[in-house]
Each structure stands twice: as structure tokens, then as C-alpha cells.
């Protein structure tokens, strides 16, 4: 029995890793395609049918390029930077519930790499470490522009993490649990958190944009004033890792949004499906539903990128500290009052 659990867990871990990598890969293609469509262009369509092999071609190109190393005082840190970003972006996927249980070969398989009861704390811990990757990379580049960009990222990520954490508190109060599995299970059928916590959802959404350094909060990558940003000195696959980490983080935060606010794998009619088609089929559809929700958020990320212009730095700080944090605290108070009245 013990061996079976190990095998089952290994398979799930490998699958989660593969899915995250694959999604991150195809996010690059989706980004280019959607950018093209919004600008009335066609986008990449040469490599493979409809450009489907473009991510592989991009990867091959990045591997084949020259790895340039600036005259940096610390080579080790320079190499380490992208890897920290990458690892941290991938680590979050461990606690995400990809679906309810599936019955395979008479065993109930929990579709989650690690069901820990402090999942939310773990997510925030890992997210806050990812800033080190950019910080170290920017500092080790031995370039003033990269350092300024890294400083911007650090201050931005820290200020938005506070609002993000506070927006989650109301959610944790509602579900009285920190386990993502409990939160997902608590949103059965259409009891999605977005209907109970619309303000919290909005704050979390905005903070996710800021956390992943996406437009309109992509001050880290300013061509105009910072000639590129924290990865100015990076080339070839090291640069690729930074970009890959960004897309992986985007996928993970889309997943978090879907799990926390859009009902994870729950969908209206789930009970009906379970009664008529069996538990397994209903949960299988649930996985597909979750992926549709994730894709929606990834699309939203790209859609917003070509709509809203970049924030100025002081506007960014104003929004974070003077608007989102007070709003999140008000949200907590309201939730507390409502919960108190209910009980």
C-alpha cells in the first residue's frame, strides 16, 4: 500500500510539473497570437500547423544563442537569478487542487501534489521569495538600470503582496481554513467566492497583475527609461528563464484566481452529473472546467496587456498603498460583521 501511494504521488507531481511547463510554453504563443489579433495581425503561423510548434522553435533559438556574461563581480549570483525566479514560480503549483478525487483502479486518487493545511501561507511564502530572483539578477548584472529596475520590482511586489494577503484574509474567514482543497470544496455548485467577495476578487486580481509584473504594472521592463529592465544584461536561455518564469507565474496566479474565486473545479450541475453519470465522470468534467477557467484568466492577462497603458511609478504606489490596502481592510471588516451576524 505504501508503495502505491509513492507511485501515485510521483505520477501526480510529474503531471503537475509537466502541465505547468506546457502551459507556460504555450502562453508565449498565446500571447503573441492574441497580441496579433488585437492589433489586426495574424501572429506566428509558420512553425507547425497554425504556428503550434512556435514555442519549440523559440526555445531552440534561445538555446542556440550566445550566452553573454557581463563583467560582473559575482558570476554565481548572476547565474542563480533566473533559476530562483523559475523554481519559485513552479513550486506554487504543488498545493493547487487540480480536481476532486478520481477513482482509478479501485483507489481514490487526490488530484493534488501536496494537500497541506497551510497551503495559503505556503503560496504567499513562495511568492515572496520569487522577488529574490529578480533582485539578485538585477544586482549581479552590474548595471545601474538593471539595479533600478530590480528595486522597482522589489518595492512593487512587497506593496502589492500586502494588499493580496489582506484580500485573502476575508476568504479564509469565510471558509475558516487555509487549505486550498477546503476552499475549493467549499464552493460547491455555484457557491463561488466571487459572488460573496467581489471586492476581494477585484483586489486579488489587480494584485496578481502586479505580482506577475504584467501590464499595466510592468514597470520592471521599461524599454524607454531602463533599456529593458532587470534582464538587460541577460541573453539566450538565461533571459528565456526569466521570461518563462513570468509565464509560469502567470499560469499559477490564473490558477489561484480560478481556485480561490471562480469555484475551482466546481460547476453548476455537478451534483446532477455525479448522480447520473457517476462520481468519476463528474469529477473528470471538473478538471476540464478548471482548465477552462484558467485559460480565461490567462486570456484576461493578455487582453488587459493590450488595453491598459502602463502605470507611472507614483501612481502604482498610490494605488497599492492608498487604495487597495485600505479597501482590503474595509472588506475584512465587512466580512467579519456579516459572519458575526450570521452566527
Amino acid at each position: 500500500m505504501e508503495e502505491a501511494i509513492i507511485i501515485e504521488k510521483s505520477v501526480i507531481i510529474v503531471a503537475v510539473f509537466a502541465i505547468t511547463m506546457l502551459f507556460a510554453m504555450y502562453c508565449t504563443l498565446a500571447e503573441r497570437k492574441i497580441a496579433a489579433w488585437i492589433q489586426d495581425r495574424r501572429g506566428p503561423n509558420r512553425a507547425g500547423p497554425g504556428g503550434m510548434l512556435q514555442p519549440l522553435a523559440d526555445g531552440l533559438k534561445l538555446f542556440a544563442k550566445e550566452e553573454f556574461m557581463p563583467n560582473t563581480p559575482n558570476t554565481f549570483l548572476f547565474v542563480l537569478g533566473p533559476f530562483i525566479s523559475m523554481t519559485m514560480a513552479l513550486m506554487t503549483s504543488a498545493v493547487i487542487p487540480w480536481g476532486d478525487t478520481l477513482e482509478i483502479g479501485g483507489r481514490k486518487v487526490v488530484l493534488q501534489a501536496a494537500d497541506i493545511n497551510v497551503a495559503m501561507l505556503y503560496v504567499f511564502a513562495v511568492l515572496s521569495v520569487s522577488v529574490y530572483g529578480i533582485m539578485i539578477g538585477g544586482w549581479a548584472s552590474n548595471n545601474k538600470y538593471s539595479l533600478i529596475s530590480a528595486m522597482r520590482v522589489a518595492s512593487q511586489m512587497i506593496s502589492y503582496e500586502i494588499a493580496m494577503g489582506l484580500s485573502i484574509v476575508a476568504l479564509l474567514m469565510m471558509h475558516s481554513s487555509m487549505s486550498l482543497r477546503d476552499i475549493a470544496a467549499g464552493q460547491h455548485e455555484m457557491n463561488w467566492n466571487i459572488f460573496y467577495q467581489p471586492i476581494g476578487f477585484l483586489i486579488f486580481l489587480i494584485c496578481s497583475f502586479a505580482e506577475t509584473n504584467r501590464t499595466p504594472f510592468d514597470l520592471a521592463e521599461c524599454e524607454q527609461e531602463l533599456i529593458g529592465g532587470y534582464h538587460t544584461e541577460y541573453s539566450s536561455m538565461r533571459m528565456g528563464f526569466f521570461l518563462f518564469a513570468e509565464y509560469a507565474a502567470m499560469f499559477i496566479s490564473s490558477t489561484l484566481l480560478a481556485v480561490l474565486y471562480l469555484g475551482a473545479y466546481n460547476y453548476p450541475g455537478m451534483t446532477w452529473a455525479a448522480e447520473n453519470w457517476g462520481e468519476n465522470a463528474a469529477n473528470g468534467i471538473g478538471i476540464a472546467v478548471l482548465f477552462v477557467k484558467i485559460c480565461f484568466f490567462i486570456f484576461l492577462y493578455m487582453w488587459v496587456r493590450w488595453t491598459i497603458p502602463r502605470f507611472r511609478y507614483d501612481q502604482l504606489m498610490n494605488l497599492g498603498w492608498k487604495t487597495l490596502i485600505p479597501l482590503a481592510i474595509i472588506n475584512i471588516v465587512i466580512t467579519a460583521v456579516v459572519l458575526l451576524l450570521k452566527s
Partner: protein
Amino acid sequence: MSIQNISLSGRKKQVSNKEMTLGERLYIGAIAGGMATTFKHLFKKKVTINYPEETRPFSPVYRGQHMLMRDEEGRERCTACGLCALSCPAEAITMKAAERKPDEKHLYREEKYAEIYEINMLRCIYCGLCEEACPKQAIYLTTSKKIVKADTNREHFIFGKEQLVMPLEQAIRNTAKSE
């Protein structure tokens, strides 16, 4: 009517710096409007084309690469009079005339022909004045899709007779078609 109120286009607007209302300052309406605009563009007609497979239609007055024509018997029409070179505003055409030998009657129509005929494609502006100046209907700017090939060597853009004179097979084909 004072001068401040005159608006020729009828669209003149007084600029105001009035305070935005709370709803406007939340920007939610503006953002939603912007998102709707970009979303509509997802389904708009694409302005780009798949180039090598599709090409844009050429305009009817398109002027392509020059060609020195042959007559119905395959002889070169050009008599090296120099009128094209004279009319060329960019001075792209140079030529050197030579006298026809008795055994070359099948090659050149007139007694004088162009021994060297060169067009500098970097100077040519495709105005078509050479075509208009030619009394022998020897030079034409073709309507074909033949475009001067890109190159990194400037020397290669000076086209000699081997690139300009109509290929013999093409002349035969054209004659066959017209008969």
C-alpha cells in the same frame, strides 16, 4: 460674434479642467470601455497577408523592371540613339553604340545597335520617361511582377544587356501568340 467663438470645422471645443466625479475617478467604466474596444479587434479583418503565398494586387499603372524588346523576328529593337538616356531624369542609363556587321543582320534590326546598355537600378526612379522617349519601342517598364532583387553589393545593381534584353524564347513565344 467674437473671434473666440468661430469654429470652421464645427468641432471646436472649450477645454475644461473640471474635477472628475467619483464614478469617473474609479476608472472602471473607462477600463471596461477600453477592454470592449480591444475585444472587438480580435474578430476584425486582419490587415496583414501571408506574404509568399498571397501577394497584394499590383496597381494597373505599376512599373516593373525594364526590358529591352525584340521584334517579331527576334532581333533587338534598340538602335542606341540615346534618347532614353537623355530623357532619364536620374541619369541611370548609359550606352555605347556599335555598327552592325553584315553577318549580324539576324541579331539587330537597325544598322546601329547598343554594344553596351546599362541601367543603374539604384538610380532609376521608375518614372517611365525612357519608355516614352524611345522612338523604336525598344525599352519598356514591364507590368510583370519582376522586381529588382535585393543585394548587398552595389555593383550588382548595374544591369547590363544580359539582364535587360528580352530572352529569345520569350520573344518566340510572344510572336507565336500574336499570329
